[in-house]
């Protein structure tokens, strides 16, 4: 049976056709249902296309300032360790403006979970270059394609997994049903780690932004398969026992 999870409100979402956010939203809700933690959830929506996460998830959710979800999550988890605290962040949010909060939460080994949706651009503001934009990729601020003068792609998994105090880091993708299911497994593990008090987990999910990429949704999936996942290699970067 493949039916709408309970933790997802039965409403139409605002995302563009073929956007990966919708898929990850559903996976998140499925996992919450499967783990039976809906009533323990405190989720943090980012500033980014997913800002309205609270219109879709049927559990307690808040909207943090741009880039600050890991700081907000730290405070919540420390004060209510029995809750499950998850941040959902885009690449602009997590590693452009919010790089320091992410780095410090990771280095402290906070017992929180970060879902990091990497769509190689700032979707919400109209498709500008993000720290994760692929070299050569055209965006509204790199009309000729990104060059190294504009900065280089930041590899969040590689960077964060180099920190001793981090528990689990994985990069997955949405470019096929198999990869989506793999993504779900990684996300579930990242939450299970928190429930088991294992510490900081982060899952980076390569996601389609057909609008900013100016591609048909299926082509966007192919683009992840052929280009994005070549720059950002999939895999488990850290799995501390």
């Amino acid at each position, binding site marked *: 049976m493949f039916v709408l999870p309970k933790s997802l409100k039965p409403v139409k979402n605002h995302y563009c056709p073929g956007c990966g956010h919708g898929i990850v939203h559903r996976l998140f809700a499925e996992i919450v249902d499967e783990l039976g933690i809906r009533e323990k*959830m405190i989720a943090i929506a980012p500033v980014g296309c997913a800002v309205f996460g609270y219109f879709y998830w049927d559990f307690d959710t808040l909207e943090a300032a741009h880039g600050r979800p890991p700081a*907000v999550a730290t405070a919540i988890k420390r004060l209510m360790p029995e809750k499950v605290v998850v941040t959902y962040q885009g690449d602009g949010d997590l590693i452009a403006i919010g790089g320091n909060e992410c780095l410090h939460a990771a280095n402290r080994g906070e017992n929180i979970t970060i879902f990091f949706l990497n769509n190689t651009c700032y979707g919400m503001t109209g498709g500008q270059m993000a720290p994760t934009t692929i070299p050569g990729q055209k965006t509204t601020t790199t009309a000729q394609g990104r060059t190294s003068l504009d900065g280089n792609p930041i590899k969040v998994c590689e960077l964060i997994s180099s920190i001793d105090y981090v528990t689990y880091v994985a990069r997955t993708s949405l470019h096929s049903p198999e990869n989506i299911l793999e993504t779900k497994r990684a996300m579930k593990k990242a939450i299970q780690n928190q429930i088991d008090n294992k510490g900081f987990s982060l899952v980076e999910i390569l996601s389609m932004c057909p609008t900013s990429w100016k591609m048909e949704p299926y082509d966007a999936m192919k683009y992840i398969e052929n280009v994005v996942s070549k720059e950002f290699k999939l895999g488990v970067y850290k799995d501390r026992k």
Partner: protein
Amino acid sequence: MIKLLKGNYALVEGAIKAGIDAYFGYPITPQNEITEYMSIRMREEGKLFFQTESELASINMTFGAAVIGKMAMTSSSSPGISLMQEGISYLIGCELPCVIVNVQRGGPGLGNISGSQGDYFQAVKGGGHGDCKMICLLPASVQEMYEMAIKAFYLAFKYRNPVFILTDGIIGQMLEKVDLLSLEDVLKNQFKNLSVDDYKKMFDASSWALTGCEGRDSRFIRSLYMNEGELTKKNTLLLEKYKKMEQELDWEEELISDAEVVLVAYGISSRINKDACILARKSGLKVGCFRLKTAFPFPSNRLKEIARTRKILVVEMSMGQMLEDVKLAVDGVNTVDFYGISGGDLPEVNVILEKIKNMLSR
């Protein structure tokens, strides 16, 4: 219990007496004593002390604690408070309670680490974007650092809005006797009529905080209102709330009735005014003192009343910030004189006396 304490320590004791759950801070002079003493006292009390990686983290962690209904405080000094402006605007937009303390130092820029009053505008007019208002408390003694911390938490939860304590490096670092009164006694001093029970009840956040949706519908907390007219509606409600806050107005006046000149100030400057007032009276000059204990709400009506028949001298450690609010209050019924010193130095009693004489001879 009477003790000799620094203002910054007394503030910590007040917050603990209030029942604070969490403190977030990043070191900066002249408020380090708060962070340092909190690191000891909060651990003793089994509460959360957290040294953050930056002021951005401080204010956003405070936001996190507030979202789940905890009694949270952060403190910093001028440059650090500037960094918090976005976060403060979010707290106000999301209608979340917390206490924010600015132990002001000299500015602009890195400035210096003396006490100063250069951040009045930022605190009172809104350094953050959008129409931001916070009740702003103005302690002028170590005793008030203790008592106003207790008051601040209550008001924050009463209005679900940050409450700002605007003090400075001198009040924060000076050592002076303080009576660490019981909650009951503080409430007597700071509120007209508030029982310990009612005080504590105010911190029940179960009707709005995010604590997991067990036994109720899921909730969310946000400050984004994209639909047409939605934010305007929201802001109209905020405006009504700000209006209600005006009942928290507080000030103190001395020797006003027969005064020809009234000295107006807050915080450490008000103590200098008092020194000057005592001296002036000794030499036969009819001088009174008006001290603000809240900057928002502002005692506009009372000041206008006073000004109708008395000259006003505003003394401030800035280029003239609260001055503008005084002028707005006085609304042209009388001239308002000003003595300001910006950059961390103190106003001098002699200069105040000189100014008074000039005013009287005009």
